[in-house]
């Protein structure tokens, strides 16, 4: 069984807040849900499937469906970090195809900017005995990946900087973007070193915020007065340390990408727009290689000279400004990746960054931590 054509993304909403000291996390979930339902032309009463992940407070879906007043007959709290919400679209499509629900709501929200909760060691994690002494955080985990990529392929800091430069060119048109200033390669490489070789401007923003998606059955989609975004194919893959055969030069996109392309029946050259998870500049570089948009090791060359800038380059990406400039709510950027892809497919992106004839788009994410254990999720969508 395939999910191709079995479900449609009919609602997408990015909460406009980037700093929410006066809101609770459940409140941002619910406000995002209401926004996405309104976008689709549906109400909370129509929702019969609910999808959330580790950012959902309390006992995940149990707390949240009760809080929002949802009568669910299907819930899913799969969690593999920030890319989860991309996989949630696939899981929702699977549930819809199996008849388990017909209107699926996916929500994300968090407040890492104004009420940061430090990432504590989970003492029962299988790796805790062997890794917790060493101060692994996201920046040095991704830093090790960048360092090895540079060593093996000759990638440079200037090439990585182009990823941020491209994102900033898009963010200038997004009135909600956390950072709207256009930056140069020099600005990036001269920003303070966080964890070498990654500079401050190689890192994504930390923002409060949220987002929601509505995925429906074809029958429900037909009844709604919105452009239809068809789910074409999806793949997901965790990647870890392989018992010590660790290889930091590639991501799980090498496995999740081909699964998604095969299911969708499209190839890389068919993709008009790509949302690519951008926790760090290196994340984008590795993923576009692993998804086959360029040869392995050639990512640095590919992103240089604005190849990711809409209207300029071959692969317009993250036209909302992405996690690097716009928004990384809850430290989990997957949902905003799907939201901007939906905007592009509907022709509702900002006119300055809207890709012409955008009929097929891809959203891809890396959740968890690229240098230790991460979850890759790829989603391909088509405008109908």
């Amino acid at each position, binding site marked *: 069984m395939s999910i191709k054509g079995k479900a449609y993304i009919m609602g997408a909403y990015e909460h406009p807040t980037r700093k929410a000291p006066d809101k609770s996390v459940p409140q941002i979930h619910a406000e995002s849900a209401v926004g996405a339902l309104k976008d689709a032309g549906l109400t909370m009463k129509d929702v019969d499937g609910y999808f959330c992940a580790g950012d959902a407070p309390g006992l995940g879906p149990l707390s949240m469906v009760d809080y929002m007043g949802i009568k669910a007959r299907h819930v899913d709290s799969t969690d593999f970090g920030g890319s989860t919400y991309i996989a949630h679209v696939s899981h929702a499509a699977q549930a819809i195809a199996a008849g388990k629900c017909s209107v699926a709501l996916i929500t994300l929200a968090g407040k890492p900017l104004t009420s940061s909760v430090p990432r504590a060691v989970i003492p029962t994690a299988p790796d805790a*005995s062997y890794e917790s002494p060493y101060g692994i955080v996201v920046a040095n*985990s991704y*830093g090790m990946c960048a*360092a090895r990529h540079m060593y093996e392929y000759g990638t440079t800091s200037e090439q990585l900087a182009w990823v941020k430069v491209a994102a900033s060119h898009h963010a200038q048109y997004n009135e909600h973007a956390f950072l709207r200033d256009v930056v140069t390669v020099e600005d990036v490489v001269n920003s303070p070193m*966080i964890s070498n070789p*990654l500079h401050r401007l190689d890192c994504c923003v930390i923002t409060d915020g949220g987002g929601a998606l509505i995925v429906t059955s074809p029958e429900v989609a037909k009844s709604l007065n919105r452009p239809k975004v068809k789910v074409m194919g999806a793949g997901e893959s965790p990647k870890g340390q392989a*018992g010590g055969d660790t290889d930091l030069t590639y991501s799980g996109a090498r496995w999740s990408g081909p699964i998604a392309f095969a299911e969708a029946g499209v190839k890389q050259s068919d993709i008009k727009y790509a949302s690519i998870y951008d926790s760090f500049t290196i994340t984008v570089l590795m993923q576009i290689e692993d998804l086959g948009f360029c040869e392995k090791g050639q990512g640095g060359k590919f992103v240089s000279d604005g190849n990711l800038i809409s209207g300029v380059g071959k692969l317009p990406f993250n036209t909302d400004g992405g996690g690097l400039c716009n928004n990384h709510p809850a430290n989990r950027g997957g949902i905003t990746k799907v939201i901007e892809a939906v905007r592009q497919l509907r022709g509702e992106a900002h006119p300055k960054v809207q890709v012409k004839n955008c009929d097929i788009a891809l959203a891809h994410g890396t959740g968890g931590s690229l240098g230790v254990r991460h979850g890759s999720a790829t989603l391909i969508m088509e405008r109908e």
Partner: protein
Amino acid sequence: MAERQFPAAVINPESKPYWDGAAQGKLMIKSCTKCNKAFFYPRTICPFCASAETVWKEASGKGEIYSHSTMRRVPEPYALAYVTLAEGPKMLTNIVDCDFDKLEIGQKVHVVFKPAKEGPPIPAFAPD
């Protein structure tokens, strides 16, 4: 510059031999007697062939840096790294007793044991 203080190790019944070894200045790893592969981090069931016939053994403590990244935006910078052990597997660790600016991928390193806040000392690596 002050050195970062290692926190106390997290020890459970499965990892106790590793930390008992560390207390004696030994870096313990596991290998599988079915598929004859050494692996890291240690665990009861082999991650390559799912055999339970795995045994602890002392590693040579020699290796080379596979990759590294020094966290700078903290009061006491420290170098996170993967070291490829002479026995094969890569191990997440810190590089200590070194100039962070001079660390290189491929550099030869050896295990050293550093005091933790409490409990057994923590294995880390220093340049040869």
